């Protein structure tokens, strides 16, 4: 069952220097209980997609297309209507746990705030739910730490609190925007395991936004690879890693350093990240692509294929 579907979404920003094309005509769906990874480098528009779903884009953003959730287009809703969906239906986990918590408020007040606003829970009922959720994210000794301020927790614990905050109202979909990027690897392993357990227990769908292919490999069923605000490849994670069918995905996978791999040389993708001030006229990856031919620059390739979708005009067999 489709939970959320993004249809032909484009996001542009009006800046003094002109239009920035952040997201270009993207479509995808998330089913109930599915984990989908949005992978891309900085500037690929992955975070903007998540922000647009919850109506959190900056005021100079212009959107096109639709984001359908339960038969309504989220992009057309007013703040008041959106507030009924935020937290209760769709919740978000931000990248930096320190700046997504209010340093002046105790953990208890911050968590209660969300419950009171969205569910009208107060007093003991609210406290009970808060403690349950803090237990669910494995914060030790939760009862005594309710009165603590964010700075009294370590980075990993703060991220757990942010996750607890997202889980409080039992949402159907969690948008996790780089939830482990600011954390150390040992803590990252803790948090990824936690997200996995939560999904298994509560059946929540997760949209995981990350730049780390290693994290994706261990955590998600399906993967969507973005480059310059355009979907390059969308497939089952296993198939994508085993047989990447887009030159960008291939290059990206070869560029990731693997601790268990003995190759001395990392193969880099040549060239520089794209300039997003220009509207797309051809494949955005063509200038850096080893397999590019003249036709690649002439038209924007469509995402095609059943199951394993790719946006590349060259047949798989001809790629290096």
């Amino acid at each position, binding site marked *: 069952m489709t939970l959320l579907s993004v249809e032909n979404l484009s996001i542009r920003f009006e800046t003094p220097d002109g239009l920035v094309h952040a997201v270009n005509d993207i479509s995808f769906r998330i089913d109930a209980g599915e984990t989908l990874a949005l992978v891309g*480098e*900085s500037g690929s528009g992955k975070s903007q997609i998540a922000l647009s779903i919850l109506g959190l884009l900056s005021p100079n953003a212009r959107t096109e297309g639709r984001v359908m959730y339960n038969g309504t287009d989220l992009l057309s809703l007013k703040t008041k209507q959106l507030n009924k969906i935020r937290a209760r239906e769709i919740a978000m986990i931000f990248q930096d746990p320190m700046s997504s918590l209010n340093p002046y408020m105790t953990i208890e007040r911050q968590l209660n705030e969300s419950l009171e606003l969205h569910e009208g829970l107060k007093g003991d009922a609210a406290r009970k739910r808060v403690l349950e959720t803090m237990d669910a994210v494995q914060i030790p000794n939760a009862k005594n730490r309710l009165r603590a301020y964010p700075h009294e927790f*370590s*980075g*990993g*614990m703060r991220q757990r609190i942010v996750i607890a905050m997202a889980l409080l109202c039992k949402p159907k979909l969690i948008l996790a925007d780089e939830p482990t990027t600011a954390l*150390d*690897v*040992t*803590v*990252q*392993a*803790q948090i*990824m*395991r936690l997200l996995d357990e939560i999904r298994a227990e509560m059946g929540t769908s997760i949209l995981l936004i990350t*730049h*780390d*292919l*290693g*994290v*994706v*490999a*261990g955590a998600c069923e399906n993967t969507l690879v973005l480059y310059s605000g355009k979907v390059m490849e969308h497939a089952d*994670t*296993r198939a994508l*890693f*085993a047989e990447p069918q887009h030159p960008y995905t291939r*290059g*990206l*996978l070869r*560029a*990731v*350093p*693997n*601790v*268990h791999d003995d190759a*001395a*040389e*990392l*193969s*880099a*993708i*040549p060239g*520089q*990240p794209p300039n997003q001030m220009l509207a797309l006229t051809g494949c955005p990856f063509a200038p850096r692509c080893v397999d590019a031919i003249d036709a690649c620059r002439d038209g924007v390739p469509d995402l095609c294929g059943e199951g394993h979708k790719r946006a590349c005009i060259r047949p798989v067999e001809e790629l290096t």
Partner: protein
Amino acid sequence: MSQPLLSVRDLEVRFTMANAATWPWQTPPQVHAVNGVSFDLEKGCTLGIVGESGCGKSTLIRAIAGLAPLSAGTVTLDGTQVDYARRRDITALRRSVQMIFQDPVASLNPRMTIRQAVEEPIATFFPDRPKEDRRKQVRDYLDRVGIAERNANRYPHEFSGGQCQRIGIARALAAEPKLLLCDEPVSALDVSIQAQVVNLLRDLQREMDLTLAFVAHDIGIVRHISDDILVMYLGGLMEYGPALDVVKRPRHPYTRALLSAVPVPDPDVTVTPEILVGDLPNPMELPQGCFFQSRCPHASDICGAARPEERALDGSLVACVKAEQLAEKAALTG
């Protein structure tokens, strides 16, 4: 082997928290950032320093470069001990040791064109060189790191992060250093660009016979560039040995946990991370005994008795009293 280019002995760095004492007559608390680290770095080799944030890896190389105060220990560069209190030593140090920083854009002066940025160290350290030679050198260095000469009159903000890091490398090379200290040079860059910069550093090292100390939290990157790896935890040395040995046969429980936590970009490889409980202890109050004992799955009473000495074990140095036992156990279970 002849004498190493850089030799560090029992280096300690402590920062005094001047404002943290409640009353003026109290002794202010100290943060123990680096606690007795020793290593040797041969000419033309690369040492990778890994550890989680707050383990003192950056402070260690900043101390070597003279950017953080040494509280104890010695640094010997090319056979002479560096005296960080002497102005002349510091000037000499600046010439022979150059640093590449984490944030490529912030480490360049926004009001200097990149030609000026690369020319500055040449003009400072080699004032006798004629202007034409300087110009030519700037061109050569920029060319070497892959920045076209026609862009030399541009300002840092006109370049991407990866390009700025290349310019930072060119600037560091312009001083003709013996030793290049890299403080997380690629962690601010995207994966595809990261590989470019790492490969560039490797190539430069081979061509110019550079010696590198490479600090990073990503053990995958470090493994690809280093000859030796030094693993730090809470400012102390945990394991130090040839890169392959450390990665393939980690002897210290911390190294093992660190390696198992690194996500593998392959869904068919099921890694079962040894999940460490808890967080880094407070560096203001160092624990008695082994630094890692509070999170170590193998810790017992002897670990708390005294800080374990670094012992040689199959060519590596390991600071764990149980290293042999654990190695046997690992060999038994395969």
